[in-house]
């Protein structure tokens, strides 16, 4: 704190209340009954100056504290009118009510302390215009100059007009204030309301009270605040609201201690919820930075694109030393409490690093899973391509060759040659049919053309063990059908090889977003997914689609192989 600031502190802190007391003393010394508003005035100005100074101290760059302090000082000036001094009266009269203008300014500028928008600057400037109106009222006042040193221009009519302008202006100003602050309240998010709420509510009450007071004055024609009490109370509420807000943010920082305990007790993945509670921002998101690069992921390891900072959202980066470990996306209002965020960041440091490593691990797992799925997809599409090439390339050529041999045989007259050609044709026919079976083994066209149910029926019809096929539901995504097909094919092959089964059953159905593909038999059981590569390979294939392969095969109870694959 600079020496100048310290001096200002001192002056304000001492001068404010002293001035109020001094003003009141004026009445008392002159044998005038004390103002009924004295205790309120004393309280209001002291509170306003004190809380203004505390705010200023905490946030020197924010003008709110300064303005609050100035309002507190201005409050006290009205009191010096009682000193039976024409100059004191004039000054007091000029500044009477000016504290409300400063209060209006600071409330409209709250919480940043700056009047962001041009229209707000115009409004507040016009508000200060009311001070000029007050000065002109003092100058044109119908009082002798020995009472009011400023009464240099005797113009009762003009005074009346100015007084009306002042009242109407104040009423309009208050009404506009209600609209602005009301809107701000409605648009504030949860944590913003929590932070700004007390002051906004006090401001709303204040503006409402002033507006009503002006109406009452217009009807009753009395001095401000004398008939209608609420404006005085409202003014008192404003510094109280500021102090309340300060106290609450101190309390919030105490909650940070609980946060550390909470994070210690709970497992990974709860950081975001804990932070949301501690910072009172239910929409809060935590992004963890991956070791390599600038990408962020959530606690599940899913890539997280940080939103652009805007009027509602801000991002706070948390780290250790120079390393940014995480980004907290929160409501902008939390920036009003930088110390809270700092405390939270410090408290969660270690837990955050753990959580980040956890998120990073999950992310790597996901990347791996995706790459496995891609590999399977690539392999499948390669198989499809190979099957196509066999059908549309090699097989067609063999058929053309066979047709040519056939024609040739019709043309040769030598019986022995014709016999040889006939044998060649037989060989060729066998080759074509073997090629057909080979192509089917690589990828059955019926699977893509007619679906898993049809392909399963064909598999069943080729099985040496009787197979019942039960199908419920329509087609699944191609990858699911392909995986299901290989599950059925491999399971049926196992039934024939090991199960000594009398019958088997294929069931294909959909339940709760899962494709359920099940092959069961009544054989000897005892199958083990670790034995041989068949079932293990199937488990990999099903796993690549985030599904799982269940093998139930207790000895003597038959074997059930079931793939559960998400298909929604």
């Amino acid at each position, binding site marked *: 704190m600079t020496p100048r600031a310290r001096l200002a502190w001192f002056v304000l802190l001492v001068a404010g209340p002293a001035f109020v007391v001094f003003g009141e003393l004026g009445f008392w010394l002159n044998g005038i009954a004390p103002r009924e508003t004295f205790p309120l005035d004393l309280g209001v100005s002291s509170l306003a100056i004190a809380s203004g100074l505390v705010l200023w101290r905490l946030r020197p760059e924010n003008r709110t504290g300064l303005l609050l302090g100035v309002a507190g000082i201005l409050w006290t000036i009205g009191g010096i009118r009682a000193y039976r001094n024409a100059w004191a009266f004039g000054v007091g009269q000029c500044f009477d009510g000016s504290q409300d203008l400063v209060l209006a300014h600071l409330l409209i500028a709250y919480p940043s302390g700056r009047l962001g928008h041009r229209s707000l600057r115009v409004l507040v400037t016009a508000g200060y215009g009311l001070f000029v109106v007050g000065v002109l009222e003092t100058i044109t006042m119908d009082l002798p100059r020995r009472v009011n040193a400023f009464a240099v221009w005797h113009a009762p009519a003009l005074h009346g007009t100015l007084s009306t302008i002042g009242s109407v202006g104040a009423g309009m100003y208050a009404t506009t204030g209600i609209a602005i602050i009301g809107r701000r309240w409605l648009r504030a998010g949860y944590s913003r309301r929590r932070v700004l709420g007390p002051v906004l509510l006090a401001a709303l009450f204040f503006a409402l009270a002033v507006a009503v007071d002006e109406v009452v004055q217009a009807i009753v024609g009395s001095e401000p605040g004398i008939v209608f009490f609420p404006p005085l109370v409202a003014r008192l509420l404003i510094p109280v609201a500021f102090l309340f807000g300060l106290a609450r943010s101190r309390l919030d920082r105490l909650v940070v201690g609980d946060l550390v305990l909470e994070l210690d007790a709970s497992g990974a993945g709860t950081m975001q919820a804990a932070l949301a509670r501690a910072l009172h921002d239910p929409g809060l998101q935590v992004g963890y930075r991956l070791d390599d690069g600038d990408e962020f992921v959530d606690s599940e390891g899913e890539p997280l694109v940080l939103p652009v900072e805007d009027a509602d959202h801000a991002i706070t980066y948390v780290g250790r030393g120079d390393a940014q470990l995480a980004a907290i996306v929160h409501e902008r209002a939390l920036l009003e409490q930088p110390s809270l965020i700092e405390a939270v960041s410090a408290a969660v440091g270690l837990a955050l690093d753990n959580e980040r490593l956890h998120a990073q691990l999950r992310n790597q797992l996901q990347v791996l899973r995706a790459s496995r799925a891609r590999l399977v997809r690539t392999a499948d599409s390669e198989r499809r391509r190979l099957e196509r090439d066999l059908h549309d390339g090699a097989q067609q050529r063999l058929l053309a060759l066979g047709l040519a041999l056939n024609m040739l045989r019709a043309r040769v007259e030598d019986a022995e040659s014709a016999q040889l050609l006939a044998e060649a044709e037989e060989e060729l026919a066998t080759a074509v049919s073997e090629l057909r079976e080979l192509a089917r083994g690589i990828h059955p066209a019926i699977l893509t053309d007619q679906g898993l149910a049809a392909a399963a029926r064909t598999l069943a019809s*080729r*099985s*040496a063990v009787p197979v019942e096929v039960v199908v419920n539901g329509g087609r699944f995504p191609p990858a699911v059908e392909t995986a299901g097909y290989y599950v059925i094919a491999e399971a049926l092959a196992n039934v024939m090889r090991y199960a000594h089964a009398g019958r088997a059953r294929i069931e294909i159905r959909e339940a709760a977003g899962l494709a359920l593909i099940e092959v069961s038999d009544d054989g000897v059981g005892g199958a083990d997914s670790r034995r041989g590569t068949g079932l293990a390979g199937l488990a990999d294939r099903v796993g690549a689609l985030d599904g799982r392969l269940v093998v139930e095969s207790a000895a003597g109870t038959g074997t059930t192989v079931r793939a559960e694959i998400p298909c929604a």
Partner: protein
Amino acid sequence: MRVALADDSLLVREGLKRVLTDAGIEVCAEASDAAELAEAVDRHLPDVVIADIRMPPTFTDEGIRAAHTIIARHPRVAVLVLSQYVDADYALALLEDDDGARGYLLKDRVLRIADLTDALARLERGETVVDPELVDQLLRRARVASPLDGLTDRERHVLSLMAEGLTDRGIAERLWLSPKTVETHVRHVLQKLGLPEDHTRNRRVQAVLAYLQR
């Protein structure tokens, strides 16, 4: 007999054309995909269309879809689909509607030209044709306690010929039996399997195939 050929492989198309011509069948039009085929059929009105099941653009079951389109426009034109697949579902998809003469043969059948010309002749007479290998596979299928077990060998044979699409008369010729005897066998088979008896043409074949596929 006038035939239109559709196959995206020029080699196969040319080979087939020559073999058919040698066998005394006139190839009046050729096409390399379903759209060309439809146009050729409109123009030449052949007796039978021979179409590969896989044609551009997707190389899946264009042949079957082309058959439905052609028969819808020209009910008197028969369609023979040559397929690489021994799957009853494809044959059943081809036989879906009752009208028109349709045939489903494995493509290797073109290497046994007599089988092919026989199928063409049957189709020209309005019969249905299903590849014996497909029927054979369905009949060989492992079953638990099926009504098929209650069929005599003769009835079984009749059943397979029914599945191939033969008429009662065709079966009689093949088995050297009187049509009346065949009729009796057919009735017994249908009764034993619980299939309705009023089946005609495609529908009888379809019902038998579907039964065998179960």
